[in-house]
């Protein structure tokens, strides 16, 4: 540290070289997040007859390194909503902060109005869209899942770093959009099919998809968190992928330990 008064707080020239201040009068625009750093992979969500289930694993990767293995990517917001995030984990945690503050603010009037999934989704999508307009995106793909406390009508919506939003009976972010959505759509092709899907079947379906992702998504983890939201509220738990079979790996030539 340079202790001379005029250079206080600056790196010492004799140690670090002359300080390059050219960036201070640069004509370049301010740079913001250009890429995610510590990332989470897929989030899955499926509607069923009296609610919705959402799941995300607990890995946060640093490039291809599985840097953190106990990360919670599902956040309960209020009484009947869960938000699951993929993408940059620091941006996700910042968003969690915003949601916490929002919820606290909404408590003050004590007017018996509560935020539910549509409102939370709407809020998140506005935040993400505003940030993309500032060229400073929150690098996330987010699923918001919830159920109406009175009608138990399930709610499931997606929003990403550009503010693109959409809803469907089954959604997935990241790799899940390629690997899990086709499996999920076989069971719930449309809203009508949601009425025929029981909670048990929905849970089995999500377990199956998480297993497929564990097999084929190299950034996924073996443990994952799940939440089921019905009109009774949120039920949350953690699971490990069971009954694994890596038989198929023997058939893959060229990467493993085979001789040929």
């Amino acid at each position, binding site marked *: 540290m340079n202790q001379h008064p005029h250079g206080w707080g600056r790196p010492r020239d004799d140690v*670090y*070289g*002359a300080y*390059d201040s*050219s*960036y201070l009068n*640069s004509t*370049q625009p301010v*740079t913001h*997040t*250009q*890429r995610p750093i510590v990332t989470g992979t897929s989030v899955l969500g499926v509607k069923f007859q009296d609610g919705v289930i959402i799941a995300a694993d607990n890995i946060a990767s640093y490039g291809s390194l599985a840097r953190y293995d106990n990360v919670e990517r599902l956040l309960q917001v209020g009484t009947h909503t869960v938000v699951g995030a993929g993408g940059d984990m620091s941006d996700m945690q910042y968003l969690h902060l915003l949601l916490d503050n929002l919820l606290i603010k909404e408590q003050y009037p004590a007017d018996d109005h509560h935020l539910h999934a549509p409102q939370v989704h709407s809020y998140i999508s506005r935040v993400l*869209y505003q940030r*993309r*307009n500032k*060229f400073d*995106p929150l690098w996330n793909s987010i699923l918001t899942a919830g159920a109406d406390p009175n009608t138990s009508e399930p709610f499931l919506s*997606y929003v990403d770093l*550009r*503010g*693109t*939003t*959409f*809803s*469907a009976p089954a959604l997935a972010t990241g790799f899940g*959009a*390629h690997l899990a*959505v086709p499996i999920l759509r076989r069971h719930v092709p*449309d*809203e009508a099919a949601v009425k025929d899907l029981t909670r048990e079947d929905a849970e089995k379906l999500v377990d199956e998809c998480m297993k497929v992702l564990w097999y084929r998504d190299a950034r996924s983890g073996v443990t994952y968190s799940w939440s089921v939201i019905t009109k009774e509220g949120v039920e949350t738990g953690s699971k490990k992928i069971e009954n694994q079979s890596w038989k198929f790996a023997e058939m893959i030539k060229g990467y493993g330990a085979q001789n040929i």
Partner: protein
Amino acid sequence: MASSYLLPHAQHAPHAHPTASSQPRQHHWSPYTENGGVILGIAGKDYVIIAGDTRSSEGYNINTRTARKIFQLGSGIILGVVGMSADGEELARKVARKIDDYKRNHDKHITVSAAAVMLSRTLYQKRFFPYYCQPLLGGLDENGVGAIYTYDYVGSFEREQSRAFGSAAALITPFLDNQINLKNQFVPGSNGEEPRTPGDMPRDLVEKIVKDAFSSAVERQIEVGDGLQMVTVTRAPPRAEEEEATVEDDDEWTGSTISETLSPLKQD
């Protein structure tokens, strides 16, 4: 010294500030994306139709099969948007809000022509960071005649009889030329001298042509399919004598009836 893995630019001039060097950027983020789909608008003598498919995609992924691209903005005005859905929905929200404000400020419904100018200004306000979407505005004009206003990304606009926008616009446009505007068609027996004139087309015929235009586009454009959303504005039936009167009631009276239908398209 830190490993070159952590400091990929260590081999360059030491201590040079990263932003000072003119190195090519490593990764470029685009605020834009494209969600596919197609819309078309047709104006008739006393009706307007805007139709669009309900597929929303990104690259080769289908995001959802049930996304609506046509919005009711209030005061009997409808808006179809294709391109980037986030920008399209933002635009629809913004214009709907302005139409609502207009009614509160002036105590009357905005006309389509005024709304058309307002939409143009709204697009131009973002001239240097445009909304990435092509809007079609529809409604009945002061004479109750159908009006379609078409725009580019930054607000150039004109009133037209029919227009297709989106990823299958090139497929649908010449079909509409031929079947709606009767281009290249001549009165039988006139030896190709007397063109057929596009008179007043009945609404049910136009709706059939619209459906055929979409099912044709679905065959050849992967971004189009799943469902057809058709929104129609017609003149509201004249109110019976006893219904006339109360001020609150008049508040809602736009003279227009908007109806919306959803029908299936192929999903492959």
